[in-house]
């Protein structure tokens, strides 16, 4: 049965079983995944997937169910579960689906993979790494080609088809010299093209260089307040925490956000512009439709340090009376600055280049505390060596208000576009 026929069957079942509004998605997918352990090809994995989900409304009550049995019996059971969930829910007029967005077909990335070329590129990366970075151990690497077809519709008339495919390649690395070993580091890229060696894509080469230079990491003595230069990976992590902590549905609905009434106000350094831009050509597979059925739009959350909007779903918008944001992905694009990374480093009297942050999601007050991973000490404008057993403490909101500079260079890994960001006032402590 074709996916369109499955969608028609789902539509028919929903019409038969439920009198009100609904939305649904049916999908099929295939994954070809090569797993490498300690530099050796270890496992080839093939996953044939299918799926269906339905959201049913009974008046202002709603429930949803999902599963992977797309036979008629399976779909009937799924619709029954969603309907039963809706019957049990309380009335809440804030639940809704997007108004009619029309019909569209979105085709993204690669539909026919070149697996031989993909495997060649992976082997080439392993050979290059072994030759140029002999102290690096590729503990684990994974190359995956993922392909999918998806149809989503709702009773307001929206009908979207999605067809796409992408390659992804990721590594877990450490480095050793005799009995000295570093900790773990991770990086990866998403791509639709195989025209560039993986070593030259994303941030792969820099990670191999940095882990090689981390073998003699030393603890910092004492404690000081200094500047932290967030690498693009760390910066993306901190910005995601910022979004969750200050402008997402949960904290706006329950009123615990410290940026509850800050839209239109300066909340960060004026160098900072944060957008979610799925249509940016550097994003390989950007979101095209939101969870509630809107066509996705590019959105700027922070413009030159000014908070432009909270990031509310349709439900969050209806609940709070604030604008909905038609973007539920995280296709992060952060505006670059004017200084080079070298100039940023040279401007720091004492601080860290923070390659990774091992810490949890900060509490509602924004306080964060964690271990600096894959990080380097900066003293008098120069990199003074890798650090270990070093903690960083601060407050998310304060940190982004105290931006010293943003690099001209940006990292594009297929899923985000992010520069290096230097922030002042972070407490850095060692033993």
């Amino acid at each position, binding site marked *: 049965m074709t996916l369109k026929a499955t969608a028609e069957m789902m539509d028919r079942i929903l019409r038969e079983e439920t009198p009100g509004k609904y939305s649904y998605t049916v999908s099929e997918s295939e994954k070809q995944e090569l797993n490498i352990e300690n530099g050796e090809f*270890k496992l*080839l994995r*093939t996953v044939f997937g299918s799926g269906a989900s339905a959201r049913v409304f009974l008046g202002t009550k709603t429930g949803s169910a*999902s599963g992977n049995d797309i036979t008629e019996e399976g779909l009937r059971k799924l619709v029954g579960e969603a309907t039963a969930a809706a019957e*049990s829910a309380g009335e809440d007029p804030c639940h809704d689906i997007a108004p009619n967005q029309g019909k569209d077909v979105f085709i993204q990335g690669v539909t026919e993979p070149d697996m031989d070329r993909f495997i060649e590129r992976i082997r080439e990366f392993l050979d290059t790494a072994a030759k140029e970075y002999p102290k690096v151990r590729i503990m684990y690497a994974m190359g995956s080609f993922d392909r999918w077809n998806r149809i989503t519709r709702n009773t307001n008339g929206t009908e979207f088809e999605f067809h796409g495919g992408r390659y992804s390649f990721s590594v877990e690395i450490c480095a050793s010299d005799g009995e000295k*070993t570093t900790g773990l580091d991770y990086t990866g890229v998403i791509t639709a093209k195989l025209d560039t060696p993986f070593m030259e894509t994303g941030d792969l080469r820099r990670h191999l260089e940095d882990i090689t230079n981390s073998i003699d990491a030393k603890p910092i003595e004492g404690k000081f307040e200094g500047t932290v230069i967030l690498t693009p990976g760390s910066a993306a992590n901190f910005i995601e925490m910022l979004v969750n902590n200050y402008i997402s549905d949960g904290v706006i609905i329950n009123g615990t956000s410290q940026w509850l009434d800050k839209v239109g106000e300066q909340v960060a350094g004026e160098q900072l512009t944060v957008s979610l831009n799925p249509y940016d050509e550097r994003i390989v597979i950007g979101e095209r439709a939101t969870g509630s059925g809107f066509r996705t739009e590019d959105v700027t959350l922070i413009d030159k340090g000014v908070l432009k909007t909270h990031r509310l779903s349709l439900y969050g918008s209806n609940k709070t009376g604030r604008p909905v944001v038609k973007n539920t992905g995280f296709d992060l694009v952060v505006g670059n600055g004017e200084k080079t990374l070298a100039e940023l480093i040279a401007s720091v009297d004492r601080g860290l280049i923070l390659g990774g942050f091992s810490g949890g999601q900060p509490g509602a*007050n924004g306080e964060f505390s964690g271990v600096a991973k894959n990080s380097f000490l900066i003293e008098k404008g120069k990199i003074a060596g890798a650090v270990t057993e070093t903690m960083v403490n601060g407050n998310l909101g304060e940190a982004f208000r105290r931006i010293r500079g943003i690099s001209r260079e940006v990292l594009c890994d297929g899923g985000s576009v992010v520069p290096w960001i230097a922030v002042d006032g972070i407490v850095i402590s060692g033993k």
Partner: protein
Amino acid sequence: MLHDVIGNKISLFSDGVQTVLRGQENRNRRVVLLKGNLVQNSRSEARGINARVNDHGTFGFASIAEYTPEAAEKVIRAATENAGALRRHSGRNVPLPPSKGTGTIPLNAAITDAPQKELIALCRTIDGYIETTYPDLTSRTVVYSEDSQDRIVCASDAFCGHLVTPRCYVYVMMSAETKDGVPVELFKAFGGFGSFYDHFQEPEKLYPGIDLLHKQLMDKKEGVYAEAGYRTVVLGGLMGGMLAHEAVGHTVEADLVRGGSVAGPNLHRRVGSELVNMVDFAHSYAGGAAPLPVFLDDEGTKAEDAVLISGGILTGYMNDRESAEEYGMTPAGNARGWTFSDEPIIRMRNTCILPGKNTVEELIASVDDGYYLINSGNGEADLTGEFMFGVTCGYEIKNGKLGRALLDTTVTGVAFEMLKTVDMVSDTVEWSSSGFCGKKQPMAVGMGGPHMRCKIMIGGR
């Protein structure tokens, strides 16, 4: 629950390789009430079949989202072809691990399914209790979350069986504000192995735990930042469990040992004080069931306990069949996959630091100036054993007595150094089983520990 459509497919396995066929269903039920608003109300089920073939160290895996005899035949063919295809690219040629016996492991439990309306009613009852009893909160969230694995495993030269792992929890999160308007939060999980009716028929049984959580939150409202530095602390049992899992457990997973973890050169060496003993329990603990019992893994290995640290000496790793051969150990059933589309990898089961002889009160009374760290919101560790745990609930200890509560802080250290500072261990163990371990795939795991007096780096402001 699954009916067996794969057991008679063993005849299709190829000779000269090791094949495991697995049929599996994962179920999820979830209800979220945010300040009384039902913001999530969902159910999901994913069912399918996979096969994994070991062709002398090169593995082929295939899965399909169908649960039929035809799907079983398709994945056996695809996995066998994948192993053969990869072998042409790979230089691996590893002897197949020997069989450790064959047989059938009996079904261990049943999964019962409660209708969604009962899950919502439970959450509303609990939410109503909190709203009525504690109007001083700025926000509250009540979550019902249930997941289950239902697996049928058929192995070419190992054990077969039909096993289930249902678990369900209610999470309660509370928020309040300090006098300066700064938000503070705490959460607690209730529940464990089993289904809705095993744990939540009488919601009022949760109220004492909710009351304690509220008291701790009110203490935290008046809390202070910890004084940063290398301090004597009493780690609570939940923190001990986090340490066992994150900081030690991962470093002794054999695939990470092979990758260069600190446990490699430390086998048979001292990694903790004589008071430190650690075991990854399979299905039983102290004469009863372990929090999340595992009787059979996804390679067909009959599950047994894996002793990891004995008297402070590192004695073993957690293995799959191949790594056990490599390290001269016995596989104990640690190779597990989360859904039908996940290949088995080395995972923990119920990892625990064993109890000692002191009471909790004795540990606290023994500290002149330090901290009592009760609960953690998160934790991470590295191959080197360097760990970080967020501390969400803790108190000062002054002259052997509990003092002011702590605001959120973080503790760090290097596991095999920190464990050598353990000089008192309590006679009771606290377990948690509500979380997921992340390592390529999620996995439900239990972790437990006693209270321990030790020295640790604590972060302040």
